[in-house]
């Protein structure tokens, strides 16, 4: 199934929840959606028989300046099609529903996004830091991050 | 003092000291490990008494079997991840009474032993004790031997049955 067909299906179902569809080379075609609807949209994407996106390839956080973005790359084993779902959340209140219960693989990806970007995934069972130590301060992948001078008595800069 | 006397006093001291540690130590693991030396000492006494089969059996059964069982028992029934495994005793008065009782028994036994005129036969030059014991077991004591085998079998089955988790 092509990306614009998927967009049509989603648009029919969710209406305002779907913000934008963009397809221009060389980028992958993507659909931008409302962050609050992400769980429902993903649920439809996974369970509807014509979409069947059972494989979450990648979940990435992005720093877009004023807001933070989350990108879901989905793939379907059955229909061998893929789609990119994008959403943005404001930097001050970066909260959005978790998709961990749809695809268990999102568990660690979301923890990583939380760890590096500080997004809060509501509904995640165990949202704690994954790569960095538990007592680390700040979200290092944000563009305005400054590395700390010292950690546990060890100097961090060269 | 001859070599045998020296060995005897050494073993006696080993037995008494290690048994005292078994009884009086606060740390139950010390008790368990100290028991090994008691068993060793007793095995040594058996050697002095020309009972070499018994000595080896003592080492094999008591140290290789019972002591290992006891250590496992201690480890499985106590928090063993720390090194200070304590075992409490009764209150002071009870300990005092028990101590008195034990001392009285010990002293009276010693008095009785040393004052009794035992009928002593000459220490026989024992031959191959293994052979003799084997002969005895399979002739005069055959019934007891069979009973002991059955007992052991029952003990194995019973122990396995009891210790199994429900």
């Amino acid at each position, binding site marked *: 199934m092509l990306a614009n067909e998927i967009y049509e299906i989603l648009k029919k179902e969710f209406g305002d929840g779907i913000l934008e569809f963009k397809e221009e080379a060389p980028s992958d075609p993507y659909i931008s959606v409302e962050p609050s609807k992400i769980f429902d949209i993903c649920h439809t994407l996974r369970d509807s028989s014509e979409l069947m996106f059972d494989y979450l390839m990648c979940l990435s956080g992005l720093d877009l300046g004023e807001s933070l973005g989350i990108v879901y790359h989905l793939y379907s084993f059955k229909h061998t099609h893929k789609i990119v779902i994008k959403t943005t959340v404001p930097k001050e209140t970066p909260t959005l529903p978790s998709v961990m219960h749809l695809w268990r693989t999102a568990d660690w990806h979301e923890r990583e996004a939380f760890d590096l970007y500080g997004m809060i995934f509501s509904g995640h069972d165990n949202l704690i830091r994954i790569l960095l130590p538990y007592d680390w301060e700040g979200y290092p992948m944000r563009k305005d991050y400054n590395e700390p001078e010292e950690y546990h008595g060890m100097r961090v800069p060269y | 003092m001859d070599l045998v006397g020296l060995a005897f006093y050494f073993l006696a001291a080993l037995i008494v000291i290690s048994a005292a540690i078994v009884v009086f130590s606060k740390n139950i693991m010390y008790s368990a490990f100290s028991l090994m030396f008691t068993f060793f000492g007793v095995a040594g006494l058996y050697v002095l008494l020309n009972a070499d089969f018994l000595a080896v059996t003592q080492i094999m059964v008591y140290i290789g079997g019972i002591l290992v069982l006891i250590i496992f*028992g201690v480890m499985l029934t106590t928090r063993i991840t720390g090194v200070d495994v304590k075992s409490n005793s009764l209150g002071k008065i009870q300990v005092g009474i028990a101590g008195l009782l034990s001392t009285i028994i010990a002293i009276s036994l010693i008095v009785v032993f040393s004052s009794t005129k035992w009928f002593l036969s000459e220490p026989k030059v024992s031959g191959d004790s293994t052979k003799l014991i084997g002969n005895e077991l399979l002739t005069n004591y055959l019934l007891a031997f069979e009973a002991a085998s059955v007992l052991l079998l029952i003990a194995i089955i019973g122990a396995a049955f009891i210790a199994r988790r429900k």
Partner: protein
Amino acid sequence: MGIGLTHYLVISAILFSLGLFAIIVRKHAVLVLMGLELVLNSANINFVAFAKYGGMNIEGQVAAVFVIILAAAEAAVALAIVLNIYQNFKTVNVDEIDNLKD
């Protein structure tokens, strides 16, 4: 003074009373068992000593063999019981285990 029967008997008496003391005083079930082993050992020393000096000949040693067999069986069963008690009561203190039902 050469080493005679009395020497062994004295050692066995001391061992016996130490074992008895442990049985009376200690609360830990395994320690009680250890006291029992001491008592059995003291008895064994007597058997073997009499086998050599007291004219009991080889029969004394045979008796000792049976004692050792008994001790082994007893230790196995006793420890199994101790383990079972521990699993049910979470303690091996012999004074606290006083109810018949678990």
